[in-house]
Every structure is written in C-alpha cells, then in structure tokens.
C-alpha cells in the first residue's frame, strides 16, 4: 500500500475513513506514516486544550428564563401560499429534465437499461424545491465565506465553488424568468453576476479588487435577499412534504 495522504490521516484521526482497518495495518508497518500521524495527533490534541468559559449546571434554565418573555411577542413566521412557486417549479422541472436527460445520455448505462419508475408530481416538486433550496444555501455560504475571509487567503477555493454554482444558477434563473417569476429571477440574476465576477477573477487578484467584490455583496444586500428566498423555498418544501404524508 502506498503512503497515506494528509487528507487520509485527518480522516483517520476523526474515525471517518471508509476502510480504517487498511489504514491501521499500514500505520503498523510504515514508520513514515506513523511519524506523520503522531505529529497530527499531537497538534490536534493540543488544540483541544483551548478552554471555553464555564457555565453553571443549570445554564439551560437561565437561558430559558431570559428567553421565555420574548417568545410571547414572537409569532411563527407565516408560510407563503402554494401559488407563488407553482409555475416556477414546473419550468425548473422542465429545465432539470433536459439537464438530467443530457447527463444520463452522456454518462448513464446503455439503452437496454430499464427505465426508472415515474415519480409523483408531489415527490418531484419536493425534489425540485430541495435542489433549489440547497443551491441557495450553498451560494449563501460561498458568499459568506468570501465576505468574511482574510485578504491574505486569496480567492482560490471561492473561485472553484463559484464556478460550480454559476451553471446551476443560470438554469434556475432562466426557468424563473420563463415562468414570469420576476422577483425570483431578479435575485438569481444578481447572484449570478457576482458568482461570475468571482469565478473570473485573475489568480493574482489584488486586495483592492477583493474588497470591491465584498463591497458589492454588502451594498446589494445580496446575502439577505438569498436568505429570504431560501427560507421561502424551504417553507414550500416543508408544506409539500407534509401534504405528501396525508
């Protein structure tokens, strides 16, 4: 067996290797990997020592005492009506069928393979809403990571992720636009322009350019808009899920 990679050693430390026995066997016989793993173990154990301030045993009760009076002024957020996403979901469904058809044709098994069982409309809607909500959440975190990152970190990882998100975003934006969902299309359009800008930055992006991208994300309140949109889609997804159980 070849040496364990750094990533495999980290996974092994956290007991998340698919085949831990193989790693254990290798570590028993490989001095080099043993030394590297011992150093990793020492460093991560060192980090465990950083303390968190003590809280009383009944801390949860204290939290509740402060919280309870505020709950009385806090109604549950209203879930928007079904009609809002209806047409948009259908358009996205059509677009996704094109994409999945393309992927299946390109990477899937031969034509003699059995066709998949058709899914119900409710199940399909739920899958679509989950997909769109996941896309919005991933976009939100990508932008948050960029907005909060240190200048010295550069854009390498942000660019790779932005590039992946652009293609999916384009699909959803076009579908929303075709379905006449102007406000949805508008937010997705803003998101897409920022994602493209991030993905297309040169490798030696300057601090000034980085700050300019961050300023734009702030000025347009893009993160807030995405969060609201994601929350609405999740609410719809949950409502559809409840209906399918009835």
């Amino acid at each position: 067996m070849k040496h364990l990679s750094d990533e495999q050693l980290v996974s092994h430390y956290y007991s998340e290797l698919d085949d831990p026995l193989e790693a254990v066997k290798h570590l028993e016989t490989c001095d080099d990997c043993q030394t590297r793993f011992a150093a990793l173990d020492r460093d991560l154990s060192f980090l465990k020592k950083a303390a968190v301030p003590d809280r009383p045993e009944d801390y949860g009760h204290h939290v509740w005492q402060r919280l309870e009076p505020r709950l009385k002024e806090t109604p549950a957020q209203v879930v928007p009506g079904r009609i809002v996403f209806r047409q948009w979901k259908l358009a996205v469904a059509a677009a996704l069928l094109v994409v999945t058809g393309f992927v299946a044709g390109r990477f899937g098994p031969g034509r003699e393979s059995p066709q998949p069982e058709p899914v119900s409309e409710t199940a399909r809607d739920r899958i679509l809403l989950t997909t769109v909500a996941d896309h919005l959440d991933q976009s939100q975190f990508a932008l948050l990571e960029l907005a909060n990152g240190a200048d010295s970190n550069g854009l390498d990882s942000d660019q790779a992720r932005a590039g992946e998100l652009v293609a999916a975003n384009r699909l959803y934006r076009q579908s929303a636009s075709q379905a006449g969902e102007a406000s949805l299309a508008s937010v997705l359009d803003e998101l897409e322009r920022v994602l493209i800008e991030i993905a297309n930055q040169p490798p030696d992006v300057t601090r000034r350019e980085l700050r300019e991208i961050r300023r734009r994300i702030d000025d347009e309140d893009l993160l807030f808009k995405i969060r609201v949109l994601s929350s609405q889609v999740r609410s719809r997804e949950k409502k559809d899920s409840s209906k399918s159980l009835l």
Partner: protein
Amino acid sequence: MEVMEASQATAVAQVQAGDHAAFQVLVEQHSLALFRVAFRMTRSESDAEEVVQETFLRAYQQRESFEARSNVGTWLYRIAVNGCIDLLRKRKRHDAHLEPLDSDEVSAPVLTLASSSPAADRLVYSAQLSQRVANVLERLSSVERAAFVLRHYEELSTEGIAQSLGLSNSAAKQAVFRAVQKMRKALEPWAR
C-alpha cells in the same frame, strides 16, 4: 437511538403546535452546546450569550419550517452558525477602520508573569494558549472555522457538519481538512 428520535419528533410536533413547555425542554438540552460553538466562533462570552438567545428566538419563529426528518441539534447549530457569521461580519465592518492585528506577530509561548507557583504558571499558560488558538481560528474563513469547531470540539460527523452548514458532504470534509492544515501551520512554533 430510535426512542430518542421518536421523542424528538414528538417534542418538535409539540413545539410546532406552540407548546412552550416542550420548547423549554429543547432549550435546556441544547443551550450549552450552542454556547460552546458560539464562543469558539466569536471568542466573546457576551456575544456567545446573545447568539444563544437569538438562535432559540429564530428557531421558535421558524418552527413551522423545521423538517421532521432533520435532527433538531443540527438545525439549531445551523441557525447559531449563521448568527455567528452575521455577527463576525458586522464586527469586521465595524473594526474596518482600525489597524488589523497581524496574528503572525503573536509570540510563541513565553510565561509573561514571573511566578514561582506552578498553578499560576499553568493559568498563564492556559490563557496564552486560548489566545493563540483564538488568533489561529481567526485566520480561517468563517465556513472553515465553523466546520472545524463542529468537527473538532463538538465531534459532529461530516454529514452533520454538511447539514449544519448547508454544504455537500465533500465540501464539508474539505472545509475541515483545509482548517486542520491552516491550524497546524499556524501552530508550528507552539506545538513542538
């Protein structure tokens, strides 16, 4: 485990119906874990306390959107991490006019208080260690920091981290790995 999941589902259904007593049980169960995460993210006791309060308040507001198949703890972590990231963002904007501290300049472990007492020395060392770890954590991106805190201190699985941060499993795993690499590099002078 199945019993726990069933009781959790019952508790969530009660909370969704507006049952304060059921919500109190969730608050008392999860407050400490949320405080630990919030403190490790923000490095401020008062900010962490505020994040805990806001997390439960938002959870209560958004109780209708909780999905029965999800884990309550993961859902709360997600709200708390979002709250921490917002707070860090506001803090960064507020501090933008100040000269940034260069964490590279933080010195290696030297006991700065002259003391003959081993207990006092340990206290000083512990404080310096915590400060050093805080400085190193600040060098991570917010997602890396959250992923590392959830993995290393809260011992969440990759799947749990992915759900808490809205990432794919592979992205969550990568975020933890990148964080570990950066932390180790920054700690080289210390951890020897």
